[in-house]
Structures are given as structure tokens and as C-alpha cells.
């Protein structure tokens, strides 16, 4: 592995290791409220927000794995997300090579 690649890998692993720092923020992003939060805020829940269900249920909703601590869930989620992106990018590179 080249020196640059080694540093890039360390960079990503360090970033993943630090992701639990994101747990410090308790509030959601502005607008990304749950049905309960909207109810408390304006006294009703807009029809579409209440009734719309996601097209496909998420595998790990909100980066939280049930039965696993928030800390470990965050690490696993970060590793899965980063790993999947590496895998998809590698797949694209492979398909380009095969085509040429």
C-alpha cells in the first residue's frame, strides 16, 4: 500500500472512530422532526406527514441498532455506510475496466 493510501485509510478510520461525538447533539436537524415533535410544536400533525410511510423500511433507522448501545450503533453504522460506499465505488471502477 502506498504512503498516500495508508494516510487516507487512517483518515477514514479516525473519522469513523470519532463519529460518536455526533451523539452530543440531542436535538434533530431543523425540520427533520418526528410526528410527536410536530404534534407538540403546532398541536396537530399534517396529514401527509402522519400517513406517509417510507417506501422501504430502513435497515438501521436513525443509525440505531435495537439492543445495541448508541455508541456501538454509531460505530457500526459509520463502518457500514463507509464500507458500502467503498464497495459501490469499487464496483463502478470494475465495471468501467471490464467495459474498456
Amino acid at each position, binding site marked *: 500500500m502506498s*504512503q*498516500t*493510501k495508508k*494516510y*487516507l*485509510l487512517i*483518515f*477514514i478510520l479516525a*473519522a469513523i472512530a*470519532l*463519529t460518536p*461525538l*455526533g*451523539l*452530543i*447533539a*440531542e*436535538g*434533530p*436537524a*431543523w*425540520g*427533520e422532526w418526528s410526528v410527536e415533535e*410536530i404534534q407538540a410544536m*403546532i398541536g*396537530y400533525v*399534517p*396529514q*401527509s*406527514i*402522519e*400517513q*406517509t410511510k*417510507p*417506501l*422501504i*423500511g*430502513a*435497515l*438501521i*433507522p*436513525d*443509525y440505531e441498532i435495537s439492543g445495541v448501545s448508541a455508541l456501538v450503533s*454509531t460505530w457500526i*453504522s*459509520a463502518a*457500514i*455506510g*463507509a*464500507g*458500502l*460506499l*467503498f464497495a*459501490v*465505488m*469499487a464496483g*463502478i*471502477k470494475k*465495471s*468501467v475496466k471490464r467495459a474498456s
Partner: protein
Amino acid sequence: MHIPDGFISPLTYIPATVVAIPLLMMAFKKTKEAINDESFALLSSLTAFSFVVMMFNIPIPGGTSGHAIGAAILAILFGPWVAAFCLSLTLFIQALIFGDGGLSVFAINSLAMGFVASFSAFYVHKLLKNRVNNTIALFVTGWSSIVFASVVVAVALGIQPLLGVDAAGHPIYFPFGLAVTIPAVVGSHLLFFGVVEGFATMLVMRFLEKITHQSSHKEVLV
């Protein structure tokens, strides 16, 4: 800025999807042209970084939070199309696996944090890079990229009360209009998350220059 399912009228997300599909096809084509054995490590690492950096939620006054997105770094190094593709891929994984952002409104999130952030970063950096100090150019590029993206999200959310009310007169979709969404979403990015994105862009670019021995003053890598 990840808009969830149900918050947006089909009158908004269908046109957004129609606009986004050809753009995503073009971005995919450009990414395939850019990806090779030399570029792969950096390109895939920065794509993974965009995912990871979005997990760093930073609390701000008012009880809400937000994060950087990492689009500017990709746009400066690989051009706006490739950056938009990488960010969109990240947003797709977030929606599909983690329920962060709705799949039905994926196009709006992709247009905002993918295309608008990447294209604004690319052109702002191009405008500034030989005119002002490099560090300042990087900071302003990162800062403005997320602010431009936030304008798209604020407008998409803020027009929803105009697009449907129920029998009781309550909005069907997102309940707050532009007078609320613009200050809340754009304001918080101007003051807080833009600054975070600016510093992230600056620091990561400095780090990459060190490890690749290339200057961000040079042309786009591909």
C-alpha cells in the same frame, strides 16, 4: 437538511425527480470517466468521508443540530459532476439503509446537497483561487456550498403550505412557510454549519495536499 418522506408534495418531488434523473445520468457518466486505479483511493475515501462527516451532528442554539457534508472537497478535486454523483450516492445509502432522508424526496436532497453544493463549490473556488489567499478561498468555498444547498431545502420546505391544506385549513405537507424556513434553514447554515463546512474543507484540503504533495491551486485532478 435530509428531508423525510411525507413532508413534500408530489407537486414538488415529481418535477424534482424529472430534473434530477438526467443530471444523475450525466454525473454517473462523468464519474465513470474519472474513476481509475490512480483516482480510486482518493475518490472513494472522500465519498466515504462525506457519509461519515454527516454523522457529526453539531448542536446549535434553539435545540436543533446540523452537520457538514463534504461536497466542496470533492468538487474542488474532481469537478462538480463527480462530486454531485458521490454525494448523491451517499444520500441514497443514507435514505435506503438508515432512513435519513426520504426515498420519495431523494431527488430534492440530491439536487440540494449533491448538485447545488457541488456546482456552487466548484465555481466559487474557481472564482477565488487565484484572487485571494488559498486558505480563505477554501473556507469560503465550503461555507458558501452548504449555504446554497440550504436555500434549496428552505424553498422546497417553505412552499409546501401553498400546495395543500385539509378541511380544517391545516397544511397537509410541511407546515411552515418561507418566512420561517428561510431564516431557520438558511440562517443556521450561514451562521453555524457553513462555518463548520468551511473549516472542514480547509483542514481536509490541507491534509490532502500534505499526503499527496499536490496543491489545491493546481487544476482539477481529472
